[in-house]
């Protein structure tokens, strides 16, 4: 494997990690918001 390939692999791994991190952050916020919405709904009843 050439050094350029190695660099490209690292770069891709890095960008994938960043995207995965952002997605997980988004899901954490979404699940929290869903929980609040559900609690609110059950209180309304």
């Amino acid at each position, binding site marked *: 494997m050439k050094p350029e*390939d190695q660099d*490209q*692999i690292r770069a*891709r*791994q890095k*960008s*994938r990690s960043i*995207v995965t991190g952002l997605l997980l952050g988004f899901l954490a916020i*979404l699940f929290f*918001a*869903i929980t*609040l*919405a*559900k609690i*609110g*709904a059950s209180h309304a009843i």
Partner: protein
Amino acid sequence: MTMLTYPAATLMPAHWRDFVALTKPRVMTLVVFTGLCGLLAAPGHIHPVLAFTAILCIALGAGAAATLNQWWEADIDAKMKRTANRPLPAGRMDRQAALHFGVGLSFFSVILMGVATNWFAAGVLLVSILFYVFIYTIWLKPRTAQNIVIGGAAGAFPPIIGWAAVTGDVGALPVALFMLTFFWTPPHFWALALFVRPDYAAAGIPMLPVVAGERATRRQIWFYTAIMAAAALAPVLLRLTGIVYGSVALAGTAVFVALAFQVYRSRETDPARMKPERRLFKYSILYLFLLFGAVVVDRWLLA
């Protein structure tokens, strides 16, 4: 299905953009829009966060189905100019990764839908994904020229899912919207199939223009347009919608019928010169947007 050996470049981890490309984001817009309209047209109240989650689940489910479709058809896509540059046939991604991504996304979208809204909506979402992957992609598409007629049902599910996310059941209006999308699919896709026919022929997919010829395809487009027009006007006659939908459906369908008639009468055999076919294809997308939008406007006006 034959196994292809892909270039060694697949050792390279796939770019995240290729995972996004697998979900066919452009096709997703129509699915999201019709799902959203089903949700907004439904009676009752849904929390905005849950509404957003329901639409997200419909989008992810559609993305999962598109991913599994490309996983199965990688060898066919490689033979068609239009699809040869997709992540799998171009060798930018390992097939196994696409399979895992598609299955994972399917489970995630269905479970999230069930948890956030209700399990009936999740069930319909699951059925639509399974229908698209197993009935359409694997079973019918390679076997029959009527493939997209039945496959169209998978694309017609979103308004039902959106409605079910609010109400937990199915009403007459989402079924009417299902029928409209169902009968809209054949003229929409066959108009496309007419001008990309050489591609389908090269890939050995039995699309109608390849198997039955162009004359038969033009007749079938005309035939399904007539049924679609009836489906488009049915909500008006059944008094499920109001004046906005009624007028948009009447005017929009009249234009659709006129364009379909041009396609029916055309004798053009050179795909490069098929202008009416391209026009009908483009207009058909706008048509569906207009009619679904009108359903929502009507609902809000009535409310």
